[in-house]
């Protein structure tokens, strides 16, 4: 699977989006803190979902002392945004140039 597939797969699950939402509100939480945010999940469940998010690059962990902190990494989403939005903008610009050419050609 390429990086983009991993990001979409990670985002396709509501629990994982919830975990990202919680990190957006309060970045740098430990596993224990994240567990408390989603009491409906077992510790194993939280770890498994965090693993998928980490694999996709959406969560980055950093060790500080005895604790491992989890950070929301927005860069993969930015890269997807740029890929599609830039393509769209480029097409728009090309269409406008075509229109300009047509209108000026008619004169």
């Amino acid at each position, binding site marked *: 699977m390429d990086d983009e597939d991993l990001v979409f797969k990670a985002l396709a699950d509501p629990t994982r989006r919830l975990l990202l939402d919680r990190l957006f509100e309060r970045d740098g939480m430990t596993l224990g803190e994240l567990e408390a945010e989603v009491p409906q999940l077992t510790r194993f469940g939280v770890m498994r979902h965090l693993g998928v998010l980490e694999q996709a690059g959406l969560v980055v962990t*950093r060790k500080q002392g005895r604790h491992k902190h989890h950070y929301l*990494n927005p860069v993969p989403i930015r890269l997807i945004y740029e890929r599609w939005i830039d393509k769209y903008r480029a097409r728009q610009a090309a269409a406008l140039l075509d229109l300009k050419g047509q209108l000026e050609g008619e004169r």
Partner: protein
Amino acid sequence: MTTMTEPGTATQVYQLYIKASQEEVWKAITDPVTVARFFFGQVREGTYEVGSPIRSWSPDRSQMWGDNVILECDPPRRLVHTWRSLYDPDLAAEPESRITWEIEAQPGGFAKLTLVHDRLDASPKTAASVRGWSYILSNLKTVMETGEALPPLT
């Protein structure tokens, strides 16, 4: 580890893979010409010696954007410097924060770049505004992998 932060300090982490060597990424983030291409056209000056200033200005040099100090320099792996957003008076009034650039070589000709912006506890406005690191870093990736820069932010 000399730069350990206390848990609970406001920290932001940005990470991406770039199809380039560790040395190439190091060069890109320290070479003024490349820095200008991915970082809002800024004019960058600095020798990257520990304790020395690293300064940046707007493209026409009319406004100082950054007047920071190098805290650690370990090419091509690690660069740490202070941060104050001088381009906005509200942000400039907040206490200094810290930027760490970490570059790791990866298999397959990739480098992993991690930017940590921390010590932001007492600088909430700065913390909110520097979410733009995502744009700057993906611009760096685009410049390094395609030679083109992204269209400006609108």
